């Protein structure tokens, strides 16, 4: 899992950021910086605005006020991977086809499809239709998407949802490898991730 080349140093800074969903402002006055090799864990009750903050960072929602910026990265080309609640897996395509689709859409350049499936523990079922997968396996397939195309920024929404303990360890290892390569990540999570990385920040959102 260390084949990936390093990323250029980059930094995410937010100043006075306020997120909104519709007309409702969910989190205000957020200040944080995430450097290369760092991860910011978003904590907070359900409905505190964790997903909304991630959606704001990926550019799908406009912030209510304040600003954030990714510096040191070419913002002209895509540089963000998002892992949301919805796995974007097509049940009628096989696992390999699902991954191959994302590899050609996102440009590939990372692990090959078989290697990525192996890395998330789905190697033996690569030829199966994704519709037959369990919730946890579908989640693993969604994670494999992040591995076939290297991108410096990972925005993860409950990355360990539906995963077993071994899966949680796998997610932590994948994130560690990503951070070691010089990427950065923002993750909303309730469960403690067994991360080895030193640069772990935490942001608590209050409803």
């Amino acid at each position, binding site marked *: 899992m260390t084949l990936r080349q390093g990323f250029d140093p980059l930094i995410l800074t937010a100043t006075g950021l306020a997120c909104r969903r519709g007309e409702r402002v969910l989190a205000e006055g957020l200040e944080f910086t995430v450097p290369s090799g760092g991860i910011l864990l978003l904590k907070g009750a359900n409905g505190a605005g964790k997903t909304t903050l991630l*959606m704001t960072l*990926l*550019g*799908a*929602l*406009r912030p209510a006020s304040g600003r954030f910026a990714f510096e040191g990265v070419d913002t002209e*080309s*895509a540089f*963000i*991977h*998002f892992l*949301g*609640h*919805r*796995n*974007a*897996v*097509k049940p*009628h*395509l096989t696992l390999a*086809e699902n991954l191959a*689709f*994302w590899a*050609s*859409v*996102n*440009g590939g350049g990372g692990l090959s499809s078989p290697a990525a499936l192996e890395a998330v523990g789905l190697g033996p079922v690569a030829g199966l239709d994704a519709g037959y997968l369990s919730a946890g396996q579908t989640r693993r397939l969604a994670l494999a998407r992040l591995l076939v195309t290297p991108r410096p920024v990972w925005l993860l929404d409950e990355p360990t949802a539906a995963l077993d303990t071994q899966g949680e360890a796998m997610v932590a290892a994948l994130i560690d490898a990503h951070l070691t390569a010089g990427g950065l990540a923002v993750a909303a999570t309730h469960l403690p991730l067994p991360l080895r990385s030193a640069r772990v920040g935490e942001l608590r959102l209050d409803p």
Partner: protein
Amino acid sequence: MMSAFTAILLRDLKLALRTGGDWLTLALFFVMVGIVVPFAIGPDRELLSRLAPGIVWIAAFLSVLLGLDRLFRADHEDGTLLLLRLSDLPLAGVVLAKLIAHWLLTALPLLAATPLLAVMLSMDPPAFLRAVVSLLVGTPGLVALGTVGAAVTVTIRRGGLIAPVLILPLAIPLLIFGVGAITTGPGPDQSGTALLLLAAISLIAVAVTPFAAALAITSAED
């Protein structure tokens, strides 16, 4: 970027063909209208062939509109649409790829089924040929307008019939010139002019749609 475009196009076709005959129901609907009308109107061949252009277009119009909802629905619900916004291919390119795939899946079967309608509606061979050309030229515009409607309504749950209702007024010119491109009389034959106008509307719609639909999708989430 081209590979992303073709990947989306091919994936949409593959998914549609693999999920079974879902996409064929529209062609079936098209044929059903053609079969039902002669029974409703009666066996007057003269009258039937006079009404045929209008009936062919009404059938095509309705079946294209009915298929609109599935254009973005599945991709929106499983999160694919959001991720496609994070690719290097501009969203307008994504929309164009999906538009072409949708046309191939909904309008092409209609064209293939047109001979059946021609027989049922006792169209003569020249009229049948004009009908095929008219549909070939007009349906891309119809699908394009529908794409905008589908993009605007994609975040509305169970908004199945809202998109057709929304774009109906915009699509009426296509219907008028589409029928005009098949009809030759009474009076001087103006089907050629109508066909050119139909082509013009169709081209404008296809050119503008990707940008309009992309804008609708980005602002719908916000």
